[in-house]
């Protein structure tokens, strides 16, 4: 006998059927890892022996006894604020300039996009080489005009700004997104603004900005999430700049110099896969997740406010 289903039940099943690929992906790649992370944050687990329940020990360890947690969190948040802000401003400015250029726009577009295509490790190694305070060409050029260059990646005060410079060098992706948004602004609106006698600033403020706000918001949200996971460039820059190489068995604390480039993801890796302290690594991951979630929700709320105001 065929199964008799009422109309709403059938509709619900159909909806679930359509949703199932997403549900499977969500469960396997998000819900399960998240639940497992919460579970292991209360366990002592060295990835060999059976996990044992330790209550809040891992949480207390991270918040009370791990001196590197503070600097790592500070660096991560510093990078999130400064790097994302500068990337958006720089990417948008470049996009504006290149869309305004009459001749040679193609050349500049390519020139600014190319660095983005360089693999992060290679780009970072090259950048550290360029900015080497002793032998790097940048400081040599500076000294030839009588300026003593900074120690860049070798000074705790300038190491993070140097990472920001590196990220601005690879701004190509954001520039292209902004260019697409800028070229999408209806021309008639600029013509109407011209008729009203608006200057360049007024045109940007009242025509361009409202039209590209959703894209700016997109750039900020994805930038925040990406920077929260900032790992490769900071690790490579620190290791290469320190010049330390003490053999394949040795572990070097990342974050050279003076933990100034240590980020939370690096600490997660060190805890989880070098010290095999799974519990502490899970706590750190959850802290990072909570911050990323909170910031994203805040930004999304701001965005819906902006969109509502536009309507």
């Amino acid at each position: 006998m065929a199964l008799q289903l009422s109309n709403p039940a059938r509709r619900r099943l159909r909806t679930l059927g359509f949703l199932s690929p997403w549900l499977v992906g969500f469960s396997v790649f998000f819900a399960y890892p998240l639940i497992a992370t919460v579970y292991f944050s209360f366990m002592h687990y060295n990835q060999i022996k059976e996990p044992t329940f330790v209550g809040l020990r891992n949480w207390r360890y991270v918040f009370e006894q791990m001196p590197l947690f503070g600097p790592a969190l500070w660096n991560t948040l510093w990078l999130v604020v400064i790097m994302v802000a500068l990337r958006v401003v720089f990417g948008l400015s470049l996009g504006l300039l290149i869309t305004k250029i009459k001749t040679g726009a193609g050349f500049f577009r390519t020139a600014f996009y190319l660095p983005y295509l360089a693999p992060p490790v290679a780009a970072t190694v090259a950048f550290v080489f360029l900015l080497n305070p002793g032998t790097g060409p940048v400081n040599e050029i500076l000294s030839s005009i009588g300026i003593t260059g900074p120690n860049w990646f070798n000074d705790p005060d300038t190491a993070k700004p140097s990472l920001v410079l590196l990220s601005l060098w690879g701004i190509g992706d954001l520039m292209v997104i902004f260019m697409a948004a800028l070229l999408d602004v209806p021309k008639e609106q600029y013509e109407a603004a011209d008729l009203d006698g608006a200057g360049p600033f007024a045109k940007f403020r009242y025509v361009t900005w409202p039209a590209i706000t959703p894209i700016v918001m997109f750039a900020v949200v994805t930038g925040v999430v990406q920077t929260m996971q900032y790992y490769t460039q900071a690790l490579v820059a620190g290791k290469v700049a320190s010049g330390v190489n003490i053999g394949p068995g040795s572990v070097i604390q990342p974050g050279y110099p003076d933990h100034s480039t240590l980020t939370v993801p690096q600490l997660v890796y060190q805890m989880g896969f070098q010290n095999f302290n799974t519990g502490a690594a899970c706590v750190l991951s959850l802290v990072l997740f909570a911050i990323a979630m909170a910031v994203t929700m805040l930004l999304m709320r701001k965005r819906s406010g902006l969109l509502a105001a536009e309507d």
Partner: protein
Amino acid sequence: MPRWRIPTCASAALAAAGLLLSGCANPSVGSANDDPTKPVTLKFWHGWATPGEVKAVNDSIDRFEKLHPNIKVKATGNVSDETINQALRAGGDKAPDVVSSFTTNNVGQYCDSGMWANLDPFMKKTGLDKKKTFPKTLLDYTSYRGSQCALPLLADAYGMYYNKDAYKEAGIERPPRTMSEFKKVAEKLTVRSGKDSYKRVGFMPNFRFYQNSPDRLFAQWGPQYFDAKGDARLADEPKTYKFFKTADQLADAQGGYDDLERFRLTFGDEMSSQNAFLTGKVAMHLDGEWRGLMLDDAKAKFDWGVAPLPVPDDQADTYGRGFITGTVAGIAHSSKHQNAAWELVRFLTADTDQVVKFANAIHNVPSTFAALKSPKLDADPTFRTFFDILRNKHSKALPPSVNGGAYVVSLQDFSYSVEAGRVGDLRKGLKKLDDQIDADTLQSKS
């Protein structure tokens, strides 16, 4: 079903599934039930990477296969500790049976976690008396709290290489033996160029320079890192303060940390032809026994010699000591052929002929009593200086710890801040470092 129940049920089911799956995450456990005379292929992971070293490993395996025709060995080189760690935790068929590591730092972790199998039962079964075979310092760094989960596979001893031409030029007759002599000689050998740079430094004391990590230099003081209970005692150890003071004085005698650090950043890679000692930028250099072979291969443009690194003035009678470490080998806990794997480990670590041949080939210090006495051992006097350092009763290896080298990393990190003058109150800083090491140790215990 009321609408609110669906999400609740779904998340409960997911949570249950998560817990179930996480319970299944443990890697496989191996066994020692295999017959070592049956045909088998063993996977052996090691860290050697240069062509000469890889050839020496492969020659060793050929010798082993000739003695054990039923055992084939598939060797994989250039494997880091991190890779071995992760592979053994993941388990499975691809994981190695026999593993080796270039550092003794992680042995405590390997033994305590059970990741490397305890070798005592195998030694008992096959009649190998470890105390009669290996020196005590080496047995200490390959075991942790009663578990001998590794055996030494050649050792590394650290001494001082010096540029004889530079010595002659500066009128120095013999290598310094005490730290105060060391300071004077280093200063004499230092040649500045311009206001804040150098043509050559006598001895680069900065801890980030090649092999200069603080734990290696600190060995000259013979420190005791932990008390009987296993708590860190660096703040209570008077030698710690003397060590940092000497490092500071060494830097000051040659122009100060900042200038030296700037100069250090111009050095080439340690293992390249741009090595600072090889290029004459450094006149005295802390390094392991392997450097001699490298200097010969690179045809160094100056005459060089080897001596033990100086010792503190108040411990002048300990001159001849040095830092000891070495390659270690063991059996993966997940190996299904542990008896066959033991045959390979036993051959590599305890067969005198093999140990001598391998030591001669890669210029590492042999790690058994019999091999150290062997007449077949390379007679090169610079190489032999390191045998004496290894045999010196004051020589020091790092004590094993439950979380491997985590305490060494913490000490290194702290030392970088001290040498840069960023630690105001050394006592307070060391107290904090001890607390940190203790907290990390506790956190790693189950």
